[in-house]
């Protein structure tokens, strides 16, 4: 990557951080935010993974318990990890795009699109950990691809560590781990010398199987303090898996999930959002109201055309990096798209880096012929994102509210029981 591209990536990261910390103390807390704090406490103290998402892995609890010790039980104690990891997902996406495509411009643009995306911003400012899936697997892939290029052992070990943290966030990180395994094992199997091949395969298995599993196991140490054994952990995971594949929501849902987006096939075909009501006046923050993260329609609705262009180009040019880029998007997205149970928009954060990477790459290709048009699109997309930011921060803004109410249907604003 050129120095200029690196500098721009750094600047984009700075912008991402600024957007994620500004007015964080004033932002009204959501019921989810408080529940995350309580769950962190319950799990680290008693090994009890409730009330938030008992069926998902538990890295968040240990992290939030640590930050609450450092910053107290306020917005910073609850959200610092989302802020930090959401910010870091921006350069991680850039590095991955650069490793895959070799294009510094596409890398910077992908980072920028992610940094300014209102849905990503919304979840980077919530205590819930969905935004972490936009970092751990992405950074792990970037490290794995760096290993493929440089053969530095440390890179693959770092990849394994990050994949472990990703799996300990949500199991969906297994999709990206599978892609990394395929790529790195493929390299190893190409070696003609048997001892070299065996040594490489063992190393890959240690880094991408044993290490992630170990990191994952360690996040369950607080659970073992309830007196459980390893065999109990397996049984518990059977229960978690059953809940995860049949999950239909925790709270009180309106019939038919009225006003909620629970079909992932819509993510890149129509404007999507995630709306939550803040806690009542007087609890925290200056104003009661809502926080709604609307995925930037001017980028998200271009994902499928970009994917088509990338797939076409990859086939024509036999471009390996581009093929992996398309594969990563499809392998991450399709399991959600074809899921038989409701999947909410918060899960789209796991797909966003790969989707926006394709949009960024396509924009760079198209800019070679239609520079002005692409530049105009970029400016309008950035402007729309900026208009949507206040709504994703819970910041009172008439302009943002008016635009949000155009993009979010009327039934979404029906009051739900907390």
């Amino acid at each position, binding site marked *: 990557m050129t120095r200029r591209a690196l500098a721009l990536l750094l600047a984009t990261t700075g912008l991402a951080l600024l957007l994620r910390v500004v007015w964080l103390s004033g932002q009204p807390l959501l019921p989810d935010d*408080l*529940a995350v*704090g*309580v769950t962190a*406490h*319950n799990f680290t*103290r*008693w*090994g*009890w*993974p*409730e*009330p938030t998402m*008992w*069926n998902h892995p538990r890295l968040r609890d240990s992290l939030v318990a640590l930050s609450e010790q450092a910053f107290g*039980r306020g917005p910073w104690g609850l959200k610092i990890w989302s802020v930090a990891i959401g910010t870091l997902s921006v350069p991680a996406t850039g590095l991955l795009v650069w490793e895959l495509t070799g294009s510094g411009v596409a890398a910077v643009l992908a980072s920028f699109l992610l940094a300014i995306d209102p849905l990503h911003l919304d979840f980077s400012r919530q205590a819930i950990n969905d935004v972490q899936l936009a970092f751990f697997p992405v950074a792990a892939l970037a490290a794995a691809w760096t290993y493929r290029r*440089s*053969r*530095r*052992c440390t890179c693959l*070990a770092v990849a*394994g560590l990050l994949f472990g943290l990703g799996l300990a966030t949500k199991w969906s990180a297994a999709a990206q781990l599978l892609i990394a395994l395929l790529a790195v094992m493929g390299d190893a199997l190409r070696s003609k*010398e048997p*001892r*070299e091949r065996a*040594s*490489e395969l*063992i*190393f890959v*298995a*240690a*880094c991408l199987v*044993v*290490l992630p*599993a*170990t990191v994952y*196991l*360690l996040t*369950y*140490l607080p659970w*073992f*303090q*309830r*007196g*459980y*054994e*390893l065999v*109990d*952990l397996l*049984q*518990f995971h059977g*229960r*978690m898996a*059953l*809940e995860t594949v*049949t999950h239909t929501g925790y709270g009180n849902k309106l019939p038919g999930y009225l006003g909620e987006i629970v079909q992932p096939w819509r993510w890149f075909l129509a404007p999507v959002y995630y709306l939550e009501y803040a806690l009542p006046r007087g609890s925290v923050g200056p104003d009661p109201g809502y926080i709604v993260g609307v995925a930037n329609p001017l980028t998200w609705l271009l994902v499928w055309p970009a994917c088509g262009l990338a797939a076409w180009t990859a086939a024509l040019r036999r471009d390996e990096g581009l093929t992996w880029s398309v594969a990563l998007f499809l392998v991450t997205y399709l399991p959600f798209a074809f899921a038989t149970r409701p999947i909410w928009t918060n899960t789209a954060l796991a797909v966003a880096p790969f989707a926006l990477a394709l949009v960024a790459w396509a924009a760079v290709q198209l800019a070679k012929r239609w520079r002005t048009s692409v530049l105009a699109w970029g400016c309008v997309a950035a402007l729309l994102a900026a208009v949507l930011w206040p709504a994703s921060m819970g910041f009172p803004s008439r302009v943002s509210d008016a635009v949000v109410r155009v993009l979010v249907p009327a039934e979404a604003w029906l009051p739900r029981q907390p």
Partner: protein
Amino acid sequence: MRPTSTDERRRVRFAWSSAIVLFAALALCASAVRGRTARVLAPAMGASGEPRWTAVRDSAEAVRAWQVAGVHGRKLVVLTGRWGHPAGSWEPQDEETGATSPPTLPLDAETGIFAATRLGIARDLLVFMNPEAVRQRTAEITERKGLRAGTGWVEAPYRGYERTFAIPDAATAPEEPVLLLVEPSYFTEDVPPPEWLASRGFRFDLGLVALEDPAATPLQRELARMFAARVGATPAGGAR
């Protein structure tokens, strides 16, 4: 610095692989040790090591008695004729910060067993009831995920937490000693007196007899008092 020769690369990879496998082995051991050492038994009564019997007012006071005894991470056997249905959830309170999850319920006879599970006193729950109570309980939870049922028993995990409801005839004793709580509503004509546990191989270090529960009749309360007297249960703070 990157290794240059093939042999050197192989040596570096071997070192990394060994270190990772060693790390994994240590993590496995740490997890196993953490779990095993978290199981705390009640101190035995006297030199004979006989199990201790205590009379408590209800399951809420049972939780306090378990906390005083310092027991933790145990299998809990409950002999009862009812199952609490609190309208909400009981969450642990941190004694330092008082932090809770809104809305929470007070610790009482309806929430006592939930409290014992959440606080890690009980890691596994075996509830023995009369056949009608088991049938009723099974009917209530028949739509639950992960339900497994056999003759006279139903395994009904609650959010991953293991719970079994069964009639005494379907009991299988675990290898380890258990905590025992006997509630008055257990005492009906179609179940044997609690002594059946010993004959089926159940061992326990701390037996609690609750003298009240919300579903118990005056006769059942009297039977519970008589049972407490028979086993020589010493009263805890609030038991009268």
